[in-house]
């Protein structure tokens, strides 16, 4: 009795719908498969059932509420009370919140992170936790896998840590770590440690989101790109490396794999497509769901087809090396980095 496995997706920050991220993951997987002779006819979406959990709509709801409320007040002030002496602090707040309705990067990307750190984060976790357990409730007889990217690594980490416990008396809303395993957990550009340093929630070093007999995961893949600014060391990258007794030595050896990719296939080194297509990732990724054992020559030929943009690599490397000199004092620096990286990518595109 082998039903297809389930793959639950958690998108990153910005303007993502659940469906758009699913399409990105599937497209990247199929692009990679197409490089290997004999595997081009396999469609990744035929091998797994994908459930993509969208949480951006909850941030969007809050952003719209803030913008609509402030805009309505501002409109009435202009139309009916042009002579009223509004305190400057109130006027500034109204102006700021009114502009949240614009689709600027700051409000689509950065605001998600800022709102997540507030109690809006708990609202998002409540919605996401329900979605996760809905999937588990219907499908616990099948292997369930998780893939999360960027802010999605924080949302997934915090939601799973909220749902799962290794306490033998779970709360009514919780599942025991040993009873409902997640077969594999793929964290790309993992910012969970950074975000928990802002929110005060349990860090990934202290949570149950891990393999081993204390956690619920069978195999944990933690993947970053050497030139992805979101996973630079100053930004509290989650890098266990056997530290802090996070896992037993055996669990660390057999149930955890940290992967650092180095090839630059796209200017946006944070992009999920670049991560999945990389040969350092895709072999393990495919073998998680189906047999991927091309002969050595086919494997080599396919790996070599993965683009590596040398020229841009050097430019991005130079930019990222500057970022690595930063001291991360808090969220303001992280937000500045996000803004700076996006502006930088736009510049590269325009060249």
């Amino acid at each position, binding site marked *: 009795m082998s039903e297809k496995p389930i793959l639950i997706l958690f998108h990153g920050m910005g303007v993502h719908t659940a469906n758009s991220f699913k399409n990105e993951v599937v497209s990247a997987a199929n692009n990679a498969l197409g490089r290997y002779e004999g595997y081009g006819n396999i469609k990744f979406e035929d091998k797994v059932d994908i459930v993509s959990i969208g949480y951006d709509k909850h941030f969007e709801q809050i952003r719209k509420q803030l913008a609509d*409320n402030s805009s309505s*007040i501002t409109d009435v002030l202009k139309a009916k009370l042009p002579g009223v002496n509004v305190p400057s602090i109130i006027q500034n707040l109204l102006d700021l919140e009114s502009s949240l309705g614009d689709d600027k990067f700051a409000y689509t990307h950065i605001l998600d992170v800022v709102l997540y750190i507030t*109690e809006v984060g*708990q609202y998002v976790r409540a919605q996401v936790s329900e979605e996760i357990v809905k999937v588990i409730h219907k499908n616990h007889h099948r*292997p369930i896998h998780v893939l999360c990217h960027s802010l999605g690594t924080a949302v997934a980490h915090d939601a799973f840590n909220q749902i799962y416990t290794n306490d033998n008396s779970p*709360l009514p809303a919780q599942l*025991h770590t040993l*009873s409902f395993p997640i077969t594999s957990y793929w964290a790309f550009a993992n910012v969970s440690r950074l975000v928990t340093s802002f929110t005060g*929630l349990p860090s990934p070093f202290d949570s149950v989101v891990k393999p081993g007999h204390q956690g619920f995961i069978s195999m944990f893949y933690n993947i970053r790109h050497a030139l992805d600014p979101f996973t630079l060391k100053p930004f509290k990258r989650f890098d266990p490396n056997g530290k802090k007794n996070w896992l037993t030595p055996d669990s660390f050896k057999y149930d955890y794999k940290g992967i650092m990719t180095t090839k630059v296939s796209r200017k946006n080194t944070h992009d999920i497509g670049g991560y999945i297509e990389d040969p350092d990732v895709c072999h393990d990724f495919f073998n998680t769901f189906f047999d991927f054992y091309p002969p050595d020559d086919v494997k080599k030929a396919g790996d070599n087809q993965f683009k590596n943009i040398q020229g841009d690599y050097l430019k991005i490397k130079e930019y990222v090396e500057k970022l690595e000199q930063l001291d991360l004092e808090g969220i303001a620096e992280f937000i500045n980095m996000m803004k700076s990286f996006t502006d930088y990518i736009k510049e590269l595109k325009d060249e």
Partner: protein
Amino acid sequence: MSKILTLLILGVLISFNVYAEDNPENKNDCSSFNTSETIIFKGSYSSGKIYGEALCQFYTGHEQSPTFEELTRLSNDWQAQLLLESAALIQLVPNLSTYPSILNNSFINDYPVKTVTSKGSDQLSIKTDNTVIRSVFGDRSACANTFIKAANCRDVISNYVSVANLPAEPIKTIQSGNALKQLNLYSKQWQNYYTKARSQTFIDILLNSYINRKDYQKGEPVSPPSEQWFALHPSIVLEYVDGATDGEQFKEALVVEWFGYNNWDSSLPLGVSLVTLYSDRASVDDVGHGLMFHVDNNYSIGVTKHDDEAGVFITVDLLKLFEDKQSNYKRQVSKVKEYLN
């Protein structure tokens, strides 16, 4: 082997359904469980039968219904025997040089096996309360020499995992169902917090986040707070000042709640705020200070003092009005003005 295991699993599941569908007259007779025995899983059959009958009693509210803990114990007993028998079957795979250490079954006797999962195409992972057993099929080609030709190790492992986890499936369904019910409740409560409670500005969100931070930092599912706090919260109101000249008595104004409170989740939500009101009248001081009272999350009424003149004001939560149609505001204002005049 995969087809035989599939048939076994289907047989067990179908036998549960056969009971439910073919015995409408004897809904509480859980002893009519399928009594056919299988050849391959003969040893574990009796514990499977006991477990199946107990499940039936549990679901039908039978007078001899086991407790959930007893059901879990019977599930563990059956699982342990199934694991041993399945492991013995896998050993029949010819030339499988590296045999999974699941044949070392002492851990099964000491602790209930909690989790069995596959890792890739050639590994098994078995967790108990205290340890993790990992097993690797070193020679993938050997799996092709099973009872069924063209099987691969991934299928062999997948079927073993299915059999190993089968006893716990009904238990898990109960557990995850209970968790889902509670999470559904939390999810609705949070939706209500952001749709039915008084609308919040970004400052309000920051303030409430800070006040309730310890609850959120526990990292557990929690309900939203039942109280809201406000700071620097602006609203548009309609104020009436009797002492103003004709034409200026009833006018829009900006009110700022410097600090406020609302008990949004009670049967009659009530709240109060300290306010300053900013108006634009030639005959009365533009600024008034006072109190604002909130009722039912949607409506507020307040009193102010402009020097010697008293004012009364009302507001409807503009968020609710402006979510869909801006014209609602004009319509509401017209209605109120019409009523007061």
